[in-house]
């Protein structure tokens, strides 16, 4: 039997009541209240071609009843017209025509599904080294990464690269899916060997939370339901883990940072005195009455009110988008940062960062670029390329002249004006910036701040 035949049959067996019965599969009554109390988890999937990524996503969508009949029909008829014998699960998740023709995923595609506990956003990323930039893009907002390993092949070079990117982008949670366990006789020994290998090389990275799950995406073992074939495995199924992994602690609630995006200034008599600073809280908690300082002016005031669309609230926390009014009429505009007088970000013009290069024209040392950091624009010059990271071997190559597409390196830049930043390891929002080419206007680099240049 060909693997594709198995795919279709396995799907048929496991979810006969597909979408028809809202109570099927997940065994929970649909409840409006429960839905309103769900939280959001963004995760990234990475794996080499043929590790089973599309099958796994297809199964998660299917078993959570997130695929509609007409979408299923469309995928089936597309499979037939391509000459595939059976419905190809990958067609449920592969988007653009060019990609369909080549039969591979070449850009990040976003997919959505929900269980009664959580809503999930999947950033489905291509695995090849030439799509490193796409993976970095998907990783930048993810709470969790799924790395797939084919149990027959174990840890391979791509696994290392994907793990490195996961740690570089500081995705707080990692799940290593050891897939195709059906093809290794559900062997505990194989699983443990791969787990040990992974742990050994991953000890070089800073990844705080790693979970290993042996599974078969094709048969569904340990995807939604615990596997009967692997009773030696004591952990939870993938979906159970995704639903329960603790993400509330991932955000920095200690260091209040509020980049000002937009000044809400009504021109009407009714709101003559209203002057709200609109923005999204990057980290920490702000409360009405808090003493704050605005950067770069250094002027201090207190928070008079916090509102969303005129509706007041007592506090604001990440990732809320709010408007903040201050007691005093100090001058604050877009690009400024509101924080606490005793807890300020670093202010500086000489910055070291890890950068992922995202375009065909190489990064040129000595060239000037525009950067966007929070709501702030500045220009910068690339002063130095300290080293390039060899993402195959994880060696640092010193003495290289430039960074090419998909290459990663540590740079030192000098900006035309001070930025207010935190190390990326502390805050992803105040610790990241993008590099923009001034000729083409395109985004050419993604940077994670290490700190001030020493």
């Amino acid at each position: 039997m060909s693997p594709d035949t198995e795919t279709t049959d396995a799907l048929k067996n496991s979810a006969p009541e597909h979408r028809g019965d809202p109570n099927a599969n997940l065994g929970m009554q649909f409840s409006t209240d429960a839905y309103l109390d769900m939280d959001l988890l963004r995760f990234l999937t990475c794996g080499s071609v043929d590790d089973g990524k599309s099958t796994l996503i297809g199964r998660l969508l299917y078993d959570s009843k997130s695929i509609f009949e007409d979408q299923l029909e469309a995928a089936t008829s597309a499979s037939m017209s391509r000459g595939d014998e059976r419905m190809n699960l990958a067609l449920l998740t592969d988007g653009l025509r060019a990609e369909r023709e080549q039969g591979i995923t070449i850009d990040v595609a976003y997919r959505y599904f929900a269980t009664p506990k959580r809503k999930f956003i999947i950033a489905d990323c291509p695995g090849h080294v030439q799509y490193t930039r796409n993976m970095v893009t998907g990783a930048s907002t993810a709470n969790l990464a799924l790395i797939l390993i084919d149990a027959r092949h174990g840890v391979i070079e791509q696994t290392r690269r994907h793990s490195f990117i996961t740690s570089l982008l500081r995705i707080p949670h990692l799940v290593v899916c050891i897939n195709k366990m059906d093809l290794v006789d559900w062997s505990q020994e194989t699983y443990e060997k791969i787990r040990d290998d992974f742990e050994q090389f991953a000890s070089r990275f800073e990844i705080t939370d790693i979970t290993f799950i042996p599974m078969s995406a094709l048969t569904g073992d340990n995807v939604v339901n615990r596997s009967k074939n692997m009773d030696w495995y004591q952990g939870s199924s993938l979906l159970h883990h995704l639903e329960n992994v603790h993400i509330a602690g991932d955000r920095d609630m200690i260091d209040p940072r509020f980049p000002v995006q937009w000044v809400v200034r009504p021109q009407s008599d009714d709101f003559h005195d209203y002057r709200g600073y609109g923005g999204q809280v990057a980290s920490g908690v702000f409360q009405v009455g808090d003493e704050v300082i605005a950067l770069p002016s250094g002027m201090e005031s207190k928070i008079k009110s916090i509102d969303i669309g005129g509706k007041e609230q007592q506090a604001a926390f990440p990732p809320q988008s709010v408007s903040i009014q201050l007691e005093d009429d100090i001058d604050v505009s877009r690009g400024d940062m509101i924080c606490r007088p005793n807890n300020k970000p670093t202010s500086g013009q000489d910055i070291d960062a890890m950068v992922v290069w995202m375009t065909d024209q190489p990064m040129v040392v000595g060239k000037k670029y525009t950067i966007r950091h929070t709501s702030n624009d500045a220009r910068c010059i690339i002063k130095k390329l300290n080293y390039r990271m060899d993402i195959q071997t994880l060696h640092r190559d010193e003495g290289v002249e430039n960074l090419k597409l998909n290459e990663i390196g540590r740079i030192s830049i000098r900006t035309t004006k001070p930025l207010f930043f935190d190390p990326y390891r502390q805050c992803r929002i105040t610790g990241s910036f993008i590099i923009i080419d001034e000729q083409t206007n395109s985004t050419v680099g993604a940077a994670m701040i290490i700190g001030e240049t020493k």
Partner: protein
Amino acid sequence: MTQAADPSSSISQYRLTHIKALEAEAIHIMREVAAQFERPALMFSGGKDSIVMVTLALKAFRPAKFPFPLLHIDTGHNFPEALEFRDQLVEKIGERLIVHKVQDMIDQGLASEDPGPYPSRNRAQIPTLINAIETYRFDALFGGARRDEEKARAKERIFSFRDEFGQWDPKNQRPELWNLYNGRHQMGENIRVFPISNWTEMDVWQYIMQENIEIPNLYFSHKRDVVTRMGQLVPVGEAPFGPRDGEAVSNRTVRFRTVGDMSCTAATDSPAATLEDIVAEVAAARASERGARMDDKTNEAAMEDRKKEGYF
């Protein structure tokens, strides 16, 4: 000095539901566009997604006025109920509405109706929209499209660049990282912005329910004359939307899941009379929302082709 609450003890207090997280993301996007572009406009059709967009704009900019007008590309094939709703809403919120008519483009020979047995002005919207962009020199247009609607959209950026013909190049999209949006553009270039990209149909309905947002009655179950055409319940109305030869008109209890042109929106049999009913119905639905759009059925890559041509 006021002390901030102890963060460790109150983490659950500082937790956002997924709907509120999506709302926060959308508000952030709208403010970015307002700050980075000179002449944005919000595409408003009177459908539920664009009504949600207006609600989000109220949250982003009130108590001030919107820093942009609403723009309606009027195909002339609208449901009368949707137009009435549009005018009431605009009056209530006191914002500026620009109506750009497909009929005017047809009269000027700049657009034509799709050939074929059924009148469709789907493609005629493209030159009309582009004409509006040129007339008002819009550089950014907010749209209510979502990535869950269709496969081509699943890969589209939130800031989606268009050339001067309004065309989208799926191969040449800017990377979009963290919450940093790069809106730098040359003269003549414009972008489509999709603040609710990450919402699903379910999220939209939940939001409407949670925020108690008014929507046209078309979305709720009502009695309506329909015919069955190509397996779908097609609403009938005044010419050119009358029944065709051999079609029997029946009066059924239906509602619309999506509201587009009368010529291409199918109704579904439904008793759902309240938002709670609708949410329960969406949760149990067997067909996607776009399944009710006859225009997508033509071929598998229909949406992708239309997008490349400048369709929203």
